[in-house]
């Protein structure tokens, strides 16, 4: 096949080829994001996402949105500005969560036997949907970062509460009070995760009494705005198609 020949011969064939491309690109984006995002999230969010006894009202609420808005921002930048496709955040989060579920189910449960109700991933989908919709309706980087980023931070805790609330029921255990999540952490022995490395319920938000989750969520939302900007530009830069003039090479 010479380079001057067209690859397709009719319009119908062109449509078909274009559609084949769609699926291939989508599949590639999905799996590549899954790999990169998953490693990134494990390294930054790590234990906060792995274990129920790390899912607290302060640090988990703060850390998880901040470190997870990264890839959605970058993929949005690519898909929206090059293709006007508003599903960058959702496709990233779906990829991440598929990877997480495979890992938690096969490795944490299948290989090491930690019960799934102790090591399931956090739910990031509500924030991702809103982030995509804000981008689509506003078509503005600033609006998406500010409104979408804030919403992403704010929706995280309530979006997970129906899943984790049952594990926050208190129990009296040998004369001490703890939540069922604490008890899971105590019962299901992790030799590599001693209790003291658990970063929960630490911080200086004491003046807010027992309503620290909304304050943490707001704080997380504000930082998410900044991270959104940052990763948006990573995405822009990464999806650049600059060609180098061959005479300069």
């Amino acid at each position: 096949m010479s380079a001057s020949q067209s690859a397709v011969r009719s319009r119908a064939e062109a449509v078909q080829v274009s559609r084949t491309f769609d699926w291939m690109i989508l599949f590639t984006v999905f799996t590549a994001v899954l790999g990169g995002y998953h490693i990134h999230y494990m390294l930054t969010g790590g234990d906060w996402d792995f274990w129920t006894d790390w899912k607290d009202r302060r640090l988990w609420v703060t850390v998880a949105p901040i470190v997870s808005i990264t890839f959605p921002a970058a993929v949005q930048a690519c898909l929206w500005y090059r293709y006007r496709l508003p599903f960058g955040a959702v496709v990233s989060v779906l990829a991440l969560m598929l990877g997480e579920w495979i890992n938690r189910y096969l490795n944490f449960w299948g290989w090491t036997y930690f019960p799934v109700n102790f090591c399931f991933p956090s739910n990031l989908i509500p924030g991702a949907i809103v982030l995509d919709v804000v981008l689509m309706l506003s078509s503005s980087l600033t609006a998406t970062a500010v409104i979408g980023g804030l919403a992403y931070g704010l929706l995280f805790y309530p979006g997970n509460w129906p899943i984790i609330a049952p594990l926050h029921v208190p129990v009296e255990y040998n004369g001490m009070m703890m939540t069922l999540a604490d008890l899971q952490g105590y019962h299901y022995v992790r030799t590599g995760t001693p209790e003291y490395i658990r970063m929960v319920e630490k911080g200086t938000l004491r003046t807010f009494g027992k309503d620290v989750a909304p304050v943490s969520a707001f704080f997380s939302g504000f930082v998410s705005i900044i991270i959104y900007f940052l990763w948006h530009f990573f995405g822009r830069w990464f999806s650049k198609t600059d060609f180098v003039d061959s005479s300069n090479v």
Partner: protein
Amino acid sequence: MKIIKDKVAKLSFVALLMSLTAAMFYTPTASAHGEKSQAAFMRMRTIHWFDLNWSKDTVAVNDTMTISGKFHVFAGWPETVDKPEVSFLNIGIPGPVFIRAGSWIGGQLVPRSVSLELGETYEFKVLLKARRPGDWHVHTMMNVQGGGPIIGPGKWVTVTGSMGSFVNNITTLTGETINLETYNLSNIYFWHAFWYALGLAWLAFWVKRPLFVPRHIAVSSGKADTLISAADKKVALGFAVATIAIVAGSMGTTNEKFPVTTPLQAGLLRGMQPIQMPESTVSVKVDDASYRVPGRAMQMTLTVTNNGDSAVRLGEFNTAGVRFLDPAVLQDETAYPDDLLAEEGLTVSDNSPLAPGETRTVEITASDAAWEVYRLADLIYDPDSRFAGLLFFFDAEGNRQMVMIDAPLIPSFI
């Protein structure tokens, strides 16, 4: 065309492999067999475990066993390891093959981290409930912040039965009895499936139309605005409103269903009660100590003075969990792990009873394959070649006295 197709297929395959690798990237630490690879000085000069007892060799799923004993926090704690100000009494098992049903230091439940004092001796107990059948090496273990895990002696325990029959029933403060092994599972699966489906629906709404090539052409030719219709915007708004409404609604119903919830409990536990060890009336001075590499034996010259009122004999030298006994004085009746027990490993040049007021200089040899097997001999390659251990003296009535020794060790290669 075929070439491009092949290329994309190849790329997709690489991406798929990458993502699978990423998914397999992390498995929580399941192994507990670090004991031999841990630096010898860590095991000899930090926590000294003794009087250990594993209550069972074989235990059925759902049955319990205990590991109990004492540990002495070495006063000459090495400078290279952080002091045990924040420590956690752990258990060295390969993942949750047992659940830790309870753990106590000096009678106090220790589900959280504790602060330990150098030079003190503590009593501990760990209650384990068998969960997964198999042969497991069960170690005592202390995690020290800034120092890492300090692994103690391990013993093989067989768990019989089937994991499917394991139950972990807990009664909550709201009066419900639940099985923590499966509790909340269907709720987790339901919400994750629900949100995943909603995310997929949003994706499908876009993916059902031609995507990359035609849209890229439209965007490049300045017709980007035609790609989003008014109907699309309505659907998008619907998705956002539904998402927020479902989050708010499900949060409300959850709070109605679980009116009593508490935050996670955390924080350091202080004031662990050490045991009052009787003041030792035997004093020991290490004149010299050497390790003979070919003979796998440690030799010490000790000057022992008995300041008490009954005659004593040396029965045991214990270092890093390895026990060297003089069978004429002490025999093990606790079924201590074989590989850590040198029943006749202790030879004393003159082990006749040391009368009150008497001082005697004796040559002591502690020899056993354990020096090699447990890589304690590697001590001579440590930056600070010192050893430490516990000596146990006994009088005729069997009263025991514990003396800590700590001295430089000179290797001998011939």
